[in-house]
């Protein structure tokens, strides 16, 4: 060292670069949607957002796809001491033989949505690969904080697996799937099934999953105020689910799967996420930790994708590729 006075600059530990640019077609769609997609998500906006989601609800007619699917709403036992859980079952009418099933958890940040949200894509898989879809209506935060949502999901899964024969489903070929909050719930249900000796799962499909309540990854900070479901929106969702404990030392891995110390012994995983979204780093880390634990995972990071890009802009070239990758994985895993 020299004797000269030193100027110490403490490098900010949180230094990240500018947000990665959005894919061009996705950016064009964001421009069209304007404020509709980038409204800040706060607790007091939850009722209005739920009402807005409700108007986009998929109708019975849309679910049946001209008779291609038989649609049933089943009420099955909920978690111990909790109300019954409703399951929406869509089964291809063309086949009677036992078939593989997708056990589906909808998106909505733990605070929004119902079990029809996102089903059109799942029905596309079902039509192409001859699958049944079982979509669970879990209770939402903040009225029903953790563990209500994940326990509802798990109870519905256990019922589905034990009544697979009644549903015409092959119990050895059930895949849990979901996007965003639903992806986090799918990952959590897979952890619960492992830890409680529950139903064996053929796979877990985690689409841009919401899995880390700490909400402090580089991508979370980098995308603050940008795109769809930014850090503040994410904070609203996690706080609604976890209350004061959010981000603290005692959060359960069944609430936030990124908290799980052990990711071994899990069903084969599919993880996808956009490079320009809050969840990029937690999702990449989750897949990486599955490999490090000796597991199987397929990871897709779509450049310039914002959160849920394939649903918001399904026509974009990158969205089509993202959706095709999911079908290819399902086909491989199910050997359908």
């Amino acid at each position: 060292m020299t004797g000269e006075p030193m100027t110490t600059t403490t490098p900010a530990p949180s230094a990240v670069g500018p947000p990665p640019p959005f894919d061009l077609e996705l950016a064009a769609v964001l421009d069209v949607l304007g404020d509709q997609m980038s409204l800040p998500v706060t607790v007091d906006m939850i009722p209005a957002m739920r009402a807005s989601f409700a108007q986009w609800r998929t109708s019975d007619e849309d679910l049946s796809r001209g008779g291609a699917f038989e649609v049933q709403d089943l009420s099955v036992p909920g978690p111990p001491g909790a109300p019954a859980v409703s399951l929406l079952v869509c089964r291809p009418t063309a086949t009677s033989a036992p078939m593989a099933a997708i056990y589906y958890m909808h998106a909505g940040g733990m605070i929004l949505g119902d079990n029809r949200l996102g089903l059109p894509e799942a029905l596309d898989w079902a039509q192409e690969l001859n699958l049944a879809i079982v979509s669970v209506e879990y209770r939402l935060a903040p009225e029903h904080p953790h563990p209500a949502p994940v326990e509802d999901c798990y109870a519905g899964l256990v019922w589905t697996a034990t009544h697979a024969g009644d549903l015409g489903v092959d119990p050895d070929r059930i895949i849990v799937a979901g996007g965003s909050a639903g992806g986090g719930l799918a990952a959590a249900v897979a952890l619960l099934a492992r830890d409680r000796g529950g139903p064996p799962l053929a796979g877990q499909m985690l689409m841009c999953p919401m899995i880390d309540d700490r909400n402090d990854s580089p991508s979370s900070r980098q995308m603050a105020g940008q795109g769809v479901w930014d850090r503040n929106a994410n904070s609203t969702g996690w706080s609604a689910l976890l209350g004061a404990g959010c981000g603290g030392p005692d959060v359960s891995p069944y609430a936030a799967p990124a908290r799980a110390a052990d990711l071994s012994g899990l069903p084969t995983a599919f993880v996808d996420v956009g490079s320009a979204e809050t969840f990029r780093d937690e999702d990449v880390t989750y897949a990486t930790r599955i490999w490090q634990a000796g597991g199987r995972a397929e990871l897709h990071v779509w450049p310039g994708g914002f959160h849920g890009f394939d649903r918001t802009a399904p026509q974009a070239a990158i969205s089509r590729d993202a959706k095709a990758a999911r079908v290819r994985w399902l086909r491989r895993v199910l050997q359908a």
Partner: protein
Amino acid sequence: MRELVAKLAALDPDAGAAVKVIAYFDRLIEGQAGLEPIVRGAAVLAGCPARLIDDERRVHIEIEADGRRRDAVTRPDPAWLSAPVVPGGPQALWLERPGPAGPIDAMVLERATAAARVVLARTRRGVAAGCVTPHDPASVEVVLDATVPADLRLNAARRLGLDRTARARAVALEGGLARVEAASGSQAPDPDVGRRRAGVGPAVAVLELPSSWAAARTALRLTADGTASDPGPRIVHADHLGGLAVLAAAVVAATEPAPDVRALERVGADAPWMLATLDAIASSPSLRAAAGVLSVHHSTLQDRIARAEHLLGWSIREPQGRLRLQLALVLRRLHRNRPLEAEWDRRPPWT
């Protein structure tokens, strides 16, 4: 997406559907999107299949309403909504829906064709002669500069849509502006330069464009405003110059005007019709034709010729006198349009 746009427009009347459509294509243009995203945008915003067909550029893209690209190549139905990409050109962008166009359809056609025009101007390939070429200034500068290594000039030519084997012409425009245009065949049509004067260079291989540029600048010196005080052609092709190119090289900034040029200036001041009349006589196959060009009676022309010959001091009806007149008019233009500075030769200012 069409329904989405309609819903959003209903939610937010101030930012109506048209604004949404404009925003979508503006972003694609800004991001330099290719043709497929533009056609896909047209399809999803219009809510029906869309296609872009440009036979000349061998472009054929068909996109379904859900964004999927179709492999099949079919002929469009003339009843569908369509618009040309190049104004006045053939119908190129098609929406597979019969008319009449609603406000969203009309805006989609308008904005998508505008976006496609930008892309085609940027990436044009193998275009027939006469098409308006992109005038990317940096690339034009490089292909016209003989001091730039050949591989860099070929790259720049590719950016202008000219491959290694293409033939092209340089065009020198009034004011020191340059263009490069694809050429096919030996006959060059007049370039589309609006009201500007232009010298058109010969068709050459891409690497010979600097010589075409030099010839184009010479041709430009032989152009005129086409007015009473500066009669003559606004566009001159270097291919037609013959020995006049040698004459042009002989007239530099320091050259003293020949006595016949001074005589022209003098007689030009005698009457406003004088120079235009002399130019018509010099460039028409007969005096009768010259009278037609000038819209004057034959006898009027005879009177004017007598006056001109008197002032000039030589006959302009005899072959030799006519050649002398032609040379005097050409020299006058060469003096009016002086050769450009050496610095300009090396690094011209561009369109």
